[in-house]
C-alpha cells in the first residue's frame, strides 16, 4: 500500500520536479531535492504505479517520466494556465475567457419544437465553467423553454473581454424566433452557481 500523494510530501515534490523537468534521472531528482537517491527512485516508482507518471523503460531503466493528466487534474498547480482544470477555484490567471452557450433549436411545452435561436456569452478572467449560469439566465428570460434540444458550451481565450461591458456577472443574450424577429437582445445578469468543472 502506497502513501497517498499529499502536498508538501517528498512524493509530491518529486512529482512537481518531474512536471517541471520531465525525464530527469533519479540522480538529478535526488540532487535537486536534496534527498537520498533511493528515495528518489522509490517515490518515482510509486508515482508510476499510482498512475501519476507516464514512464517508458528501456532495459529496465526509466528513460522517460512525465506527469500524467491524472496528476494534473488532481494537482492543478502542475498544469500550466491554459490547461488547468481547477474550476472550483476562482483563479484570476490574468487571461480573459469568453464563455458562451448557443443553440439553434429549443422545445417549449406550449409550441413543441421551435426554431428559437439562443446565444449568450460572458467574459471572465478565469476558466471556471459557467454552463449552468448561462443556461439559468436563458431560462429566466425565456421561461417557456423547457430545455434546449441541442446546444453547446464553449470557453476560449479572448483578450477582448478586458474591454467588454459583458464581464461576469453580466452577459449578452440574443433570442431570435426567426431570422428577422428578435425576442430578446440585451444584457442579463448571471448568478454564480459554483458548478463542477466542464
Amino acid at each position, binding site marked *: 500500500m502506497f502513501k497517498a500523494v499529499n502536498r508538501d510530501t517528498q512524493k509530491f515534490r518529486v512529482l512537481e520536479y518531474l512536471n517541471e523537468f520531465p525525464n530527469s534521472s533519479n540522480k538529478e531528482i535526488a540532487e535537486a531535492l536534496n534527498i537520498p537517491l533511493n528515495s528518489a527512485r522509490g517515490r518515482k516508482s510509486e508515482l508510476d504505479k499510482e498512475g501519476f507518471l507516464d514512464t517508458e523503460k528501456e532495459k529496465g531503466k526509466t528513460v522517460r517520466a512525465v506527469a500524467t*493528466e491524472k496528476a494534473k487534474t488532481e494537482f492543478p498547480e502542475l498544469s500550466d494556465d491554459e490547461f488547468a482544470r481547477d474550476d472550483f477555484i476562482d483563479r484570476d490567471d490574468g487571461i480573459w475567457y469568453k464563455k458562451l452557450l448557443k443553440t439553434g433549436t429549443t422545445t417549449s411545452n406550449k409550441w413543441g419544437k421551435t426554431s428559437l435561436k439562443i446565444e449568450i456569452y460572458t467574459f471572465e478572467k478565469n476558466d471556471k465553467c459557467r454552463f449552468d449560469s448561462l443556461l439559468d439566465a436563458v431560462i429566466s428570460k425565456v421561461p417557456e423553454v423547457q430545455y434546449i434540444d441541442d446546444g453547446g458550451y464553449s470557453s476560449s481565450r479572448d483578450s477582448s473581454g478586458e474591454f467588454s461591458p459583458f464581464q461576469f456577472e453580466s452577459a449578452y443574450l440574443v433570442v431570435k424566433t426567426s431570422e428577422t424577429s428578435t425576442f430578446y437582445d440585451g444584457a442579463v445578469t448571471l448568478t454564480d452557481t459554483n458548478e463542477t468543472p466542464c
Partner: protein
Amino acid sequence: MLKLDYDYIAYTELMRRVEFIKKDSICKSIKIMQSPSCNGYHLYVETTRELDWNETIQYRKMFKDDGQRIVLDLLKDEELKDVLFSLRYNRGIITKEIFIQQVA
C-alpha cells in the same frame, strides 16, 4: 490558439494530421480531445505567436479543419466565430470533451 474540428476520421489519419501540424513553426503544443458527440476530434493548437483572423482561417484551411465550419465562420457575425463545443447539451443529456493526449 487554433481550434480544429476533425469529424469522422480514423485515429491514424488524426495522428498523420498532428504530425503535419507539429512540423509547422506556428505550433507550440497540441491538445487532442475527443469531441463531445464522440464522432471525431477537437484539436487545440497553442501557437507561437498571436494570429489575426485571416491567418487563423489560412491555418485552419491548411490543417484541414472542417470546411463547413470555416465557411460558416466566414459568414457569421463577429461575436460567435470559431466555436468548438467543449460541452454539448442534447435533449437534457450533457456530454463533454474527453482528453486524449497533449503533444508538445
